[in-house]
C-alpha cells in the first residue's frame, strides 16, 4: 500500500529526560522517525522535554516543542497544532504512556487524532499482565506461571501447585528489593514474609523460576499487510535473571541450532501478528538449555533499547522503517537504505559477531548495590563488532572505559576463592572480570558453567583469551602468537604488559610483519549484494574494504558509552561537529562505539568506524584515513584524554593545541595563568601526599573542597569540614600519589554559574551565562541552570565576560571551552576550565539559537567568528527565561545516596521555557516529574547549620497553606520561632514501639514533599539516608538542597498568588 494521503500532520512524542532504562536510544529512534515522516512528505510536530537531543533540533521537525511530556502540556500543544495523528511508539515507555494517558483523557477523540503504529488495545495486551497471559494462552505460547499474593499461605499454596524453584517479586519496592529465588517451602516462607513486609501494598508476585534459562531476544517488524520479519536475534550471555539491559548480549545468537532459532522465530512472528503491531516489536524469550522448552518472558510493543542495538548490529534502521510502516507503507515498498538495491522486506544476515556490554554507574556510586537482577542499573552501553567472539568482546570491554582495556581487573587477583565463587553465583556488574579471574586461577569451564549457568560456549571463549595470555607470556616476541592474539582482539598494550616491551614497539613489529587491521563493511547481507554503506569495523584479516576518498577528511572522536557525567549531550555535540565539517567541504569521519546514539547512525557522517576509543584503535583508523586532523573537543573526556597520545604520535589535533589543553587541565599551569591574569580564584593547591594535603587544608582553612585532578563529572569530589574527614577521604576515596595528585580548594559559599565560550584565538563569543539555582557545593550537572541569569548585577556579568575573554585568549582556545565561576559578594571567582564542549552545549544552543558545536567546529577548521557573523562578547539574550533541570535515576538503584553534593548524580536533564522564571521552573519541575500539589504537608529534617534558612522556607510553605512536619530538633527550632509544626519521631526513637515514625508517615503517603539536609556524617545506616531512600521509593518529591526547595516554592507561590487573584 502506498503512503496514506488522508493524514498530513503527525506528532511524534519523545521519551523525555534520560533515566536508567530509557536513554539515548530514543533520541536515535525519534530522530529517525521525524526524518522518515518528513521524507514521506508529512508535516511533523515533535514534543520532548529533553534539550540534549538531536531530535529537538529545529532541522529535524517542522514544529519542535521542548515542553514537559505531561497531559497538561501535550494537550495544549495538540489543541494548538491539531495534528491528524500521533506516532507514540518511538519515544520509549514515556511516549507510549503519554499516548495512553491522552487517549483516556478523551482529547484524541475530541480532536479526531489517530494513533499510528500500534493500537492501544495491542499495547494493553502486551503490557497488562492478565491480558498478556490470556493472549499467550490463546496463541498456545507458554509463559511462566505466576500469581499475585498478599499472604505467605497463598504464596506457599501456589508454589506447591507449580513446583519449586519460584521467584518472589515484592510489588513496588526499589530495584526489586526483598525478592528472591526460593527452592523450597521453608525458603519461600522466609522470603515471602519479608517481601510482603517491604511491599508498600503488601503484595508480591510468585512466579515459576526460569532462572538459568538462555535469554534470547527477537527484534521483529510487521506492516499493515501482515508481512512480518525478524531483523535480528540476540543471545544474552547472562542467563535469565539479569535484566537484558544489564546483560552482555551477542548478535546473532551463538549457541542455538537452527531448529531452536526457527522455533523461537515462529513464536515471535506469531505474537507480533496476533498483536497486529504495525512497526517494530521486541520479544524476549527464555529457552531451556536442555530441551526445546521455552517461555515468552515479555513483549515490548514499540521501538526499544534492543531495537536500537539491533539496528546498529545489523545496519537495518528499525525506527525509520517502523515510521514508514506507521504511515501505511509496506515492507516490500520500502528500499533497504543500506544496500539501496534490496527492499526492507529482508531479514539481515550478519557475517560478524556483535557484543554489547553495559556500562554501570558504580564507579560513581561506590556504595550502591551492585548485585544484578531484574531491575536495570546500567546507564549506557558499548557495542563492538568483530569477526570472532573473542575480538568482539575484547573490543567491547575496552570501549567501556572503566580503567582497564583488557578483560582483567588486576585488583581481583587479591579476592579470596570464596569471595570469587560468591561473586560468580550472585552476579554483580563486574562478573565478567570475576570469570576471567577464575579462569586464570585454573577453574574449569564446567565448574564455572555450574556456578553461573553461562553457556560453555562463551566460557570456552573466555578461556581461550586466558590461554592466549599465557601463550603470549611464554613466547615473548613470537610473531605467530602475536598474530593469533591480534585476531582475537588483544591490544598492543596488553601484549606490551605481557612481553614487557613498549606498546609502540609492538606496533612497529606488527607493521613489519604485516599484522595489520583491515576494515569490513556492515551491509545487512553478508556481502551477498553490493552496498554503499559507509559503516565499518576493524578486524585482522586479508581484505580491507574501507576505501579512502580523495577528499580531505576530518576525524571526530565520539564520547563512547553513556555514563553519569558524560551523557547524550556529547553525542549531540559530536553530530553537530560532523555537520559543520561537511558544510566546510571536508569528509566527516566518526569513530564511536555507543549503539544507542545518533552519531553512530551511518547516515549521519560520511564514514562511521564503529570502534573502541583507545589510542591504538584510533591510530589504526588515522593510519588508513590520513585525515587532515582530529577533533577532540566534542567527545567529552573520552576524546580529550586521547589528545596527548595522538599528538605524540604526530597527529594533528585541530583547534586548541594539546599544550594548551594541558595548560587548562593541569592545576599548576592553570594557576599560573589565573595569577598572571589577576583573576580571583578560591585559594587552593595540589597535594601529592596525605601529609601535604593536611598542611594545605590547614593553611586554607576548612571547609575545603577536595578532588582528584583530571576528573570526570566531579568524581570523588567532596566538601570536608575537618582533618578527620580529610584523612578518611584520602584513605577511602582516592589514591594520592605523584601520578594522581589531589586538588584542595577553599570552599566558597556563593552563587555558581557557568559559560561556554567559542573562541577563534582573537574573538571570544559567549553565547550565554547560566546561573545555577543551587549554591556552590552541588555539582553543576546536578544544579538547575537558569538562562539568562536572574540575580546577577551588571557588574558581575561584566566580570564574567571579561574573565571568560581573558581566559580564552590566554589559553589559546580555538574552538569551545566551558568555564565555571562562583560569585560571592559581587566578586567573580574562577573555579575551573574545561577546554572542550560541556554538557550545557545543547541547552545553550537551543535557547540562544547559536549552533554552538557547529560554530566551534567552523572556528576549529580555521574560520574567524566575524566571518561567521558573530560579534565578540556576550550574545544578547531574548525575552524568554529558560531553565535546565537535572533528572535522577535513584529509584532504580538501591543504596545510592540521593543527597546532592560535589559528585554528579543525575542521569539526564529537562528544559522549561516561559516568560517568567517561575513558569519556566514550573515546566522544568513538571517535566522532571517533580509535581507538588497546591496544598499538602511538607516534612523537614534539617541539619543544624541549615535550620535558620529552613525556617524561612517553612514559613513560606505555611503561608501558602502547607502543613509542616519536622523531626525533633528541627521541630523544636521551628516551634521556638512560633511556627506551627507537627513533630514526627525519628526511626531509632520508635524502635520496638508501635508509635508511628517518620518512615511510617512517608510510607502512608501523609507527606507530599520531603526536605532533608545533613551534616557530613554520611553513614549509610543513618536516619537521613533511610528517609531519603524511603521518600524515593514512595515517589515523594525529595529536596536535599534548600535552594532547589526554594525554587519549587517560588513556583507554588506564584501559582498560589494567581489562584487568589482569581
Amino acid at each position, binding site marked *: 500500500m502506498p503512503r496514506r494521503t488522508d493524514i498530513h500532520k503527525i506528532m511524534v512524542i519523545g521519551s523525555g529526560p534520560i533515566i536508567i532504562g530509557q536513554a539515548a536510544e530514543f533520541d536515535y529512534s525519534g530522530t529517525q522517525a521525524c526524518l522518515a515522516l518528513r521524507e514521506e512528505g508529512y508535516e511533523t510536530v515533535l514534543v520532548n522535554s529533553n534539550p540534549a537531543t538531536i531530535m529537538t533540533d529545529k532541522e529535524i521537525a517542522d514544529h519542535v516543542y521542548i515542553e514537559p511530556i505531561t497531559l497538561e502540556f501535550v494537550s495544549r500543544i495538540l489543541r494548538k497544532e491539531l495534528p491528524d495523528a500521533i506516532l507514540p511508539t518511538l519515544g520509549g515507555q514515556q511516549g507510549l504512556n503519554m499516548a495512553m494517558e491522552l487517549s483516556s483523557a478523551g482529547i484524541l477523540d475530541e480532536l479526531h487524532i489517530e494513533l499510528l503504529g500500534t493500537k492501544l488495545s495491542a499495547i494493553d495486551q502486551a503490557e497488562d499482565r492478565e491480558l498478556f497471559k490470556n493472549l499467550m494462552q490463546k496463541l498456545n505460547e507458554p509463559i511462566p506461571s505466576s500469581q499475585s499474593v498478599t499472604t505467605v499461605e497463598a504464596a506457599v499454596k501456589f508454589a506447591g501447585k507449580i513446583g519449586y524453584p519460584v521467584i518472589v517479586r515484592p510489588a513496588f519496592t526499589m530495584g526489586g528489593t526483598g525478592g528472591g529465588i526460593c527452592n523450597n517451602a521453608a525458603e519461600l516462607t522466609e522470603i515471602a514474609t519479608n517481601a510482603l513486609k517491604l511491599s508498600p501494598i503488601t503484595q508480591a508476585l510468585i512466579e515459576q523460576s526460569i532462572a538459568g534459562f538462555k535469554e534470547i531476544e527477537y527484534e521483529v517488524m510487521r506492516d499493515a*499487510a501482515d*508481512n512480518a*520479519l525478524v531483523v535480528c536475534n540476540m543471545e544474552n550471555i547472562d542467563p535469565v535473571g539479569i535484566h537484558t539491559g544489564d546483560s552482555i548480549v551477542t548478535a*546473532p*545468537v*551463538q*549457541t*542455538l*541450532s*537452527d*531448529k531452536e*532459532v*526457527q522455533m523461537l*522465530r*515462529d513464536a515471535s512472528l506469531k505474537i507480533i501478528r496476533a498483536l497486529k503491531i504495525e512497526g517494530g516489536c521486541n520479544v524476549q524469550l527464555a529457552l531451556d*538449555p*536442555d*530441551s526445546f522448552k521455552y517461555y515468552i518472558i515479555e513483549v515490548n510493543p514499540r521501538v526499544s533499547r534492543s531495537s536500537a542495538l539491533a539496528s546498529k548490529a545489523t545496519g537495518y534502521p528499525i525506527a525509520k522503517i517502523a515510521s514508514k510502516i506507521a504511515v501505511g507503507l509496506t*515492507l*516490500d515498498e520500502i528500499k533497504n537504505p543500506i544496500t539501496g*538495491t*534490496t*527492499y526492507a*522486506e*529482508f*531479514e*539481515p*544476515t*550478519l*557475517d*560478524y*559477531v556483535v557484543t554489547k556490554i553495559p556500562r554501570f554507574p558504580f564507579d560513581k556510586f561506590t556504595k550502591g548495590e551492585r548485585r544484578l537482577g531484574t531491575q536495570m542499573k546500567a546507564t549506557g552501553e558499548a557495542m563492538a563488532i568483530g*569477526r*570472532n*567472539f573473542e575480538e568482539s568482546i575484547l573490543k567491547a570491554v575496552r570501549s567501556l572505559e572503566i580503567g582497564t582495556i583488557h578483560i582483567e581487573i588486576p585488583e581481583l587477583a587479591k579476592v579470596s576463592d570464596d569471595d570469587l565463587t560468591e561473586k560468580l553465583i550472585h552476579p554483580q556488574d563486574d562478573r565478567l572480570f570475576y570469570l576471567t579471574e577464575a579462569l586464570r586461577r585454573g577453574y574449569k569451564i564446567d565448574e564455572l558453567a555450574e556456578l553461573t549457568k553461562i*553457556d*560453555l*560456549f562463551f566460557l*570456552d571463549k573466555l578461556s*581461550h583469551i586466558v590461554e592466549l595470555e599465557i601463550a603470549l607470556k611464554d613466547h615473548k616476541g613470537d610473531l605467530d602468537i602475536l598474530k593469533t592474539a591480534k585476531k582475537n582482539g588483544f591490544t598492543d598494550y596488553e601484549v606490551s604488559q605481557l612481553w614487557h616491551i613498549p606498546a609502540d614497539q609492538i606496533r612497529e613489529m606488527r607493521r613489519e610483519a604485516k599484522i595489520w587491521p583491515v576494515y*569490513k563493511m556492515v551491509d545487512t*547481507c*553478508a*556481502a*551477498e*549484494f*553490493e552496498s554503499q554503506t559507509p559503516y565499518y569495523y576493524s578486524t585482522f*584479516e*586479508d*581484505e580491507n*574494504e574501507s576505501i579512502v576518498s580523495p577528499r580531505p577528511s576530518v576525524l571526530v572522536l565520539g564520547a563512547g558509552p553513556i555514563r553519569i557525567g558524560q551523557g547524550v549531550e556529547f553525542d549531540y555535540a559530536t553530530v553537530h561537529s560532523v555537520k559543520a565539517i561537511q558544510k566546510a567541504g571536508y569528509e566527516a569521519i566518526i569513530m564511536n562505539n555507543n549503539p544507542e546514539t545518533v552519531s553512530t547512525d551511518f547516515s549521519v557522517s560520511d564514514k562511521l568506524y564503529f570502534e573502541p576509543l583507545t589510542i591504538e584503535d584510533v591510530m589504526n583508523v588515522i593510519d588508513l584515513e590520513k585525515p587532515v586532523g582530529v577533533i577532540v573537543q566534542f567527545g567529552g573526556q573520552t576524546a580529550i584524554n586521547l589528545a596527548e597520545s595522538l599528538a605524540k604520535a604526530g597527529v594533528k589535533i585541530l583547534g586548541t593545541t594539546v599544550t594548551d589543553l594541558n595548560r587548562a587541565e593541569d592545576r599548576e599551569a592553570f594557576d599560573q595563568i589565573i595569577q598572571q591574569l589577576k583573576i580571583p580564584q578560591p585559594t587552593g593547591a595540589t597535594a601529592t601526599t596525605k601529609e601535604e594535603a593536611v598542611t594545605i587544608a590547614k593553611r586554607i582553612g576548612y571547609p575545603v573542597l577536595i578532588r582528584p585532578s583530571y576528573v570526570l563529572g566531579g568524581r570523588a569530589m567532596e566538601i570536608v569540614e575537618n582533618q578527620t574527614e580529610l584523612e578518611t577521604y584520602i584513605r577511602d576515596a582516592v589514591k594520592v600519589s605523584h601520578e594522581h595528585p589531589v586538588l584542595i580548594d577553599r570552599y566558597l559559599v556563593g552563587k555558581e554559574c557557568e559559560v561556554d565560550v567559542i573562541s577563534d584565538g582573537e574573538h571570544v563569543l559567549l553565547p550565554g551565562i547560566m546561573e545555577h539555582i543551587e549554591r556552590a557545593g552541588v555539582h553543576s550537572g546536578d544544579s538547575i541552570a537558569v538562562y539568562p541569569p536572574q540575580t546577577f548585577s551588571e557588574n558581575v556579568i561584566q566580570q564574567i565576560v571579561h574573565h571568560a575573554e581573558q581566559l580564552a585568549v590566554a589559553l589559546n582556545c580555538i574552538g569551545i571551552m566551558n568555564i565555571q565561576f562562583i560569585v560571592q559578594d559581587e566578586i567573580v571567582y574562577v573555579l575551573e576550565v574545561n577546554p572542550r564542549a560541556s554538557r550545557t552545549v545543547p541547552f545553550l544552543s537551543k535557547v540562544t539559537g547559536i549552533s554552538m558545536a557547529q560554530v566551534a567546529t567552523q572556528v576549529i577548521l580555521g574560520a574567524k567568528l566575524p566571518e561567521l557573523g558573530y560579534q565578540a562578547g556576550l550574545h544578547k539574550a531574548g525575552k524568554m527565561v529558560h531553565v535546565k533541570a537535572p533528572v535522577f535515576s535513584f529509584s532504580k538503584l538501591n543504596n545510592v545516596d540521593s543527597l546532592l553534593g560535589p559528585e554528579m548524580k543525575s542521569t539526564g536533564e529537562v528544559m522549561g521555557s516561559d516568560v517568567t522564571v517561575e513558569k519556566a521552573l514550573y515546566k522544568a519541575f513538571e517535566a522532571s516529574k517533580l509535581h507538588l500539589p497546591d496544598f499538602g504537608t511538607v516534612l523537614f529534617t534539617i541539619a543544624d547549620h541549615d535550620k535558620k534558612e529552613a525556617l524561612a522556607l517553612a514559613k513560606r510553605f505555611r503561608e501558602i497553606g502547607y502543613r509542616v512536619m519536622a523531626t525533633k530538633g528541627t521541630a523544636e527550632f521551628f516551634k521556638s520561632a512560633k511556627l506551627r509544626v507537627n513533630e514526627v519521631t525519628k526511626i531509632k526513637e520508635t524502635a520496638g514501639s508501635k508509635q508511628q515514625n517518620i518512615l511510617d508517615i512517608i510510607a502512608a503517603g501523609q507527606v507530599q514533599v520531603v526536605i532533608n539536609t545533613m551534616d557530613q556524617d554520611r553513614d549509610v545506616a543513618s536516619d537521613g539516608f533511610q528517609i531519603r531512600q524511603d521518600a524515593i521509593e514512595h515517589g515523594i518529591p525529595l529536596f536535599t538542597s534548600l535552594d532547589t526547595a526554594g525554587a519549587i516554592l517560588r513556583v507554588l507561590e506564584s501559582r498560589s498568588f494567581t489562584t487568589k487573584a482569581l
Partner: protein
Amino acid sequence: MKRYLILADGSIFEGEGFGAPTTTTGEIVFNTGMSGYQETITDQSYNGEIIAFTYPLIGNYGINRDDYESIAPTCKGVVVHEAARLASNWRNQLSLDEFLKQKKIPGITGIDTRRLTKRLRTEGTMKASIVDTADEHAFDQLNALVLPKNQVQQVSTTKPFPSPATGKNVVVIDFGLKHSVLRELSKRQCNLTVMPYNTTAEEIIQLAPDGVLLSNGPGDPKDVPEALEMIRGIQGKIPLFGICLGHQLFALANGADTYKMKFGHRGFNHPVREIATGRIDFTSQNHGYAVDVHSINKDNLLVTHIEINDGTVEGLRHRQYPAFSVQFHPDATPGPHDADHLFDEFMEMMDAFAKRSRENA
C-alpha cells in the same frame, strides 16, 4: 595444519585444515545462513560443491542425531572463518570437525570468507580446491577439472523404498532428496514411496499414487533429461508438486528454459512474493540455476512466485493440470517455516483432484 583454498581465478586463501585431510576440488558456493550448517552440509543439493559459510563462527552447537538432511553427504568441502573449538548444545553429539572426518569431507578454517564471498559475488561461482600446497601443479589440476554432470545419479536412491503410513499415497522422486521433505509429508500422514530419479512415468502410474513430489537435487536440471519425459507422462494424470530442482525440471518439461545464475541463492532470508495474494514468505533456498522468465510459455505455465530483490521466478503453476512447483524449500531446515503451508496446498490439490476424478468417474 596449514592448507590452502585456491580458486580458478587464481586467488589463494591461506587457512588451517580441519575435517578430512584430503585434497578436494569442486564448485565453490557461499551460503548466508547464520545457523543450520548441519542441514546445509548434509543437503545433497550441495553434491560436488565446496560450501563457504558467510557467518564466521561455524560448529558452535556441534552435530546432533536429528538434523541430518541425508545419511551420506556428498559436498566436497567446507570453508569457514572459524570452526568452533568447543561445541555446546544439549543435543550435541560430535563436533563439526569429527563429523567431517567421519564423512571424509575436508574443511578449511581461518579464511577471510567475506573476501571470498565478494569474489564469488562479482566473478560468479567457480571451481576451487582445498590443497596442502598452492603451487602451479595445484592450479593445473584445478583448471583441468571437469565438473561432473551426473550429480543427480550420484545422490539418488538406486532402488525404490517405502516410508509407510496410512494417509495419502505419495510418490517422491529422489533427485537428491532432503529428509525434511519426507518429514513434512510424514507429518501429514502420507504413505510414501521414494523412487529413483530415472523412474519412468509408467512405473509411477502403476502405483496409482494420489500425488507425486519432485524433490530437490544438485546441479543443472538439463543434466536430467530422463525426468522431463517422466513429468510429461504423468502431469494431468497425477497431481504434481516440484521443489527446487524438481521445480526446474517441471519448467523444462513444459517448454521453459533454465539458466545458470552468477552465484545463485543459498541462504534463508530470501523474500518471495506470492503474486496472487501478495503474501511474502522468507524462504530457504539453495540453487545455482533458475527458470528463465522470458522462456515461459504463458499458455501452459503461470508464474506464481517471484523473489523480491532480483525478480527471479520462484514458483510456477500449470494452467491445465494440477501441478505446481517452487524454487525455494518449503521444507525449510535450515531456515524459516514461512512457506510450509505449500505442503498443505499439495494435500488439498490431491484431495480436489481425487474428488474431481470420483465425480467424473
